[in-house]
């Protein structure tokens, strides 16, 4: 895209966006609030299968999402949203402005249509529809901010051939392990994403992000069985983190080639390992940081999302074991061992880092568990008001055209002081579960079965035999209350594909934790 640059739209919106939003609200009497989200994305990727090239991709695109709140004569408020992928027309200011105005108009009419119907229903039902009378949105002063992306190698300057090559080399190396590797797929991606948020109160926030990600899927088989393994490395950095690896303290990763080979080696070893035949009783379980990343994600992170807790996701992704009602909930109550603390922190250098959410609220650390007590939810402006707390900047959309949902950032169990080796050495008989695979969670996340990539026996403090197809099954509270050791080896893991919403939004984030020890039942194959 030499002559028309989508990223120039940022400058146009910086200059003209405020006036565009104010004019819209002034000229639409029923409009109570309007927001615009814009993003320009430059994406390059390469993929290979079984040591052979499969595809390359180079995309530059743009999208808008607008939200309008409109008030009916009856006082009922309706909420409309329009999202559209607008692509290269974003590079032409006149056409971009026209697209934004059209989207605002459409969202406004939609909000009014909903407000009319809502008003009619409230009038018909009277007190029986009292809950519809008003959702307050927490106040926030207008924000103006600029945040730059962090990278050594600019994703826009990377030749797609480099991504094709690095994926191909990694796939070849994995395939080269032998015939036991029945199939492998390796993908490499680097992306620059520049977002703008504007609202009718005068906010303008420009944030840029660099994402680079490597993915590997392996099927290995032996005479004994088969193993499917999938994993991801990712950083909010440039291509350098795939090419040479990344040595950050919290979330280090190997280079893509080594990462793929190690995953394939592990899959090969697992395919020859026996399926776990689980004991018919609760056992001591030591879990590693990679496994605990998924526990933090499913059992702490998701149920800490206030939209879920306030029943707004009841038809899709379920409710929260932390909140039965505004009057009956776990806030301030013990839900886990005093050794257990957990938080979400978007300021950390993880895959879920950001400075401002997609409602323009600054993101900040939210403590979920403090010494076993549940202490707080991730929220949006509306859910913060419902809970009577300050907004903490957790409403985020996966793409510019989507509505923001409440999302995790870098969500993890906090480290303790015990070396992981000692946590294992203290176990007379138990199991060491390593690497997360697949989760299955009860509706309010009060119970889970999460499979591990590897399960080892522990006998007399030593790691023993390796098994595949093992999983941890427990009621959430029981698992947390039984935690009796927390390691000092905190790691964050890049999670590339957290799904939520209708339609499904797939979001990147980090989850993690240190090595932990608890009690649970195990599942097998």
């Amino acid at each position, binding site marked *: 895209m030499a002559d028309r640059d989508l990223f120039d739209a940022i400058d146009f919106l910086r200059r003209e966006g405020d006036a565009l939003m104010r004019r819209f609200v002034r000229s639409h009497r029923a409009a109570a609030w309007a927001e615009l989200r814009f993003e320009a994305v430059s994406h390059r990727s390469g993929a290979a299968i079984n040591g*052979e090239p499969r*595809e*390359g*991709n*180079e*995309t530059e695109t*743009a999208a808008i999402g607008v*939200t309008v709140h409109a008030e009916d004569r009856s006082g009922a408020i*309706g*909420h409309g949203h*329009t999202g*559209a*992928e607008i*692509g*290269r*027309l974003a590079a032409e200011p006149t056409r971009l402005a026209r697209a934004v105005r059209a989207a605002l108009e459409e969202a406004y*009419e*939609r*909000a009014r*249509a*909903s407000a009319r*119907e809502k008003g009619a*229903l409230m009038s018909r*039902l009277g007190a*029986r529809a009292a*809950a519809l*009378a008003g*959702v307050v949105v927490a106040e926030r002063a207008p924000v103006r901010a600029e945040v730059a992306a962090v990278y050594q190698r600019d994703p826009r300057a990377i*030749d797609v051939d480099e991504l094709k090559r690095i994926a191909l080399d990694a796939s070849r190396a994995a395939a080269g392990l032998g015939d036991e590797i029945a*199939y492998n797929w390796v993908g490499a991606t680097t992306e620059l994403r520049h977002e703008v948020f504007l609202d009718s109160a005068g906010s303008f926030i420009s944030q840029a992000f660099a994402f680079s990600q490597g993915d590997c899927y392996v099927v290995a088989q032996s005479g004994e069985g*088969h193993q*499917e393994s999938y994993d991801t490395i990712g950083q909010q950095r440039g291509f350098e983190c795939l090419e040479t690896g990344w040595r950050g303290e919290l979330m280090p990763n190997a280079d893509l080639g080594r990462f793929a080979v190690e995953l394939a080696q592990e899959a090969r070893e697992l395919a020859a390992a026996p399926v776990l035949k689980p004991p018919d009783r609760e056992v001591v379980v030591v879990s590693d940081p990679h496994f605990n990343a998924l526990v933090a994600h499913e059992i702490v992170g998701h149920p800490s999302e206030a939209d879920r807790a*306030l*029943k*707004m*996701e*009841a038809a*899709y992704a*379920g409710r929260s074991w932390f909140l*039965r*009602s505004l009057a009956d909930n776990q806030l301030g109550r013990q839900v886990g061992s005093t050794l257990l603390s957990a938080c979400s922190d978007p300021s950390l250098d993880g895959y879920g880092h950001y400075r401002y959410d997609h409602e323009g609220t600054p993101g900040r650390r939210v403590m979920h568990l403090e010494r076993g007590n549940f202490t707080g939810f991730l929220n949006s402006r509306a859910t913060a008001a*419902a809970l009577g707390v300050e907004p903490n900047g957790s409403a985020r959309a996966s793409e510019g055209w*989507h509505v923001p949902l409440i999302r995790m950032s870098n969500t993890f169990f906090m480290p303790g002081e015990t070396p992981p080796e000692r946590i294992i050495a203290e176990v007379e008989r138990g199991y060491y579960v390593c690497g997360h*695979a*697949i989760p*299955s969670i*009860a*509706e309010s996340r*009060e*119970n889970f*079965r999460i*499979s591990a990539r590897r399960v080892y026996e522990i006998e007399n403090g030593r790691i023993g035999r390796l098994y*595949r197809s093992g*999983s941890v*099954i427990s*009621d959430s*509270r029981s698992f947390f209350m039984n935690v009796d050791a927390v390691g000092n080896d905190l790691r964050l893991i890049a999670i590339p594909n957290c799904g939520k919403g*209708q*339609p499904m939004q797939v979001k990147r984030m980090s989850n993690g934790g240190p090595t932990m020890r608890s009690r649970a039942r195990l599942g097998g*194959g």
Partner: protein
Amino acid sequence: MRSVAEIRGFALEGARVLSQEKDLAGFEIFASTAEHRIARLSYTSDIPCRGVEEMKSLHADGFQVRIVMCRDGHETGGAAEAGEFTLSALRDALGRARRATVVDPHFPGFPHQPRKLAAPPPELRDLARASDAMLAACAWRVIGGALDAYGRDAAAQREHPGLVLGGDVSIIRDRIAIASSGFPDVRTDAGAHFSSSVTALVESLDAKGTAGALGGSVAEMREASVSMGRDAVRRALASGGGVRPRSGSYRVVLGPQPVAEILNYMVMGSLTTGAFHAASSAYHGRFGARVMDERLSLVDDPAARTGAVHRRITCEGLPAAKVELVRDGRLVGLLSNHYDAHRLESDDHRAEKLGPSGAGMTFAAASGYRLGEGGGRRFDAHPGAAGTNVIFRARGGVAPAAMMRAVGEGVYIGRIWYTYPINGQRAGDFTCTVTGDSWMIRNGELAEPLAPNCVRISANIAQVFDAPLAAGSRAMPAIVWGSPEAYYVAPIAVADIALAEVAPTA
């Protein structure tokens, strides 16, 4: 949305331009315009709420160009462009497609059909023209129906009843046009359907009920909006005070939603040529073999008369066709796109992956769709293999009462959740929790309701489909969250399913 004529005109003009590019041996232009309109429902009696959380639309217009180079018939690349159907945009995409090329030794070229397809019929579905006002009216009618039904029950007099209503009313519309060096014509298609699911909870009673609807017309959507809120609330109220079965092995009836969910997450992904090539199918080495009870059949039919999804051509321009997947319990067909069909046919390990009966099989690329997150066709997606209207039937199926009798003592499971292949797709092991619409079966009849979320199922697909005690005579519609397919499934009764207690939330 753009008109079919506009995207067809672009594809035609684009094909003219690309056919003059001397370095190209072949090309394909896939243009699409798609809209997903959603009214998301969120009503909570005890917490201030919006009722309709938002009315929203997501528009995805654009095209994808794929090319194959003259210098090597296996050198291929592609690029997509959003929002604009101009020759300038096409040239820009062409430049990126050239930079993106790889030499893929297995690339079979683009689909080739020398004969023109019959012209498509005009876009008849009135959902293609449904207004926002109509969608808003339907969404609020669902809420009104729910509140009316709830208001008639004594539970409504409680100070904090904890009535929760969630779900959505959604319309999915798409139009596509495909021009290719392999076709003599520009091929077009259009689709529109709605889906709606409603979940009602009465938390003071620990009760949950659901309702859902799928269809292809405004009249069906209006009709559904009248009944769904009411039905979900009535089902919830009927399930209050539910029991929590002890852990153990049970005889169960799996209703339409659980069967659809297990098919979606555990079976359909294994019934593709891509899964067999990747050695990740649960039916690895068993093509042609019996993989289900001989009474059971599974079909994907994009032209099913009662199906919500109608597709005339695939997103590769080939005729969309009915695919028999399982006939009389035997695995006889696979969903496929053009690439994966050829890849499996040329796979050196094909005999091992398909099994002895698959040796001479060829697979039609009748299911190559490029789908977005809402299930509509999407310009920048790669052709995958997906179903449309998935129909699961049983020969000799019986009425619901006979299924209960076949179980005798057990559990009717009406809704499951978070069903995942816990040990990978190929292993066939799955786990999920029972979330609502479920009842104990005693003396062959429905007895007391189950509390929502009280048990976890851990099983293997073989336990479900290999030897059912009985199966239903009617295939009923079912929606699976996040799935592009519409399911029409018969319930089945199964023995020896392990249920494990889930502790209630405090």
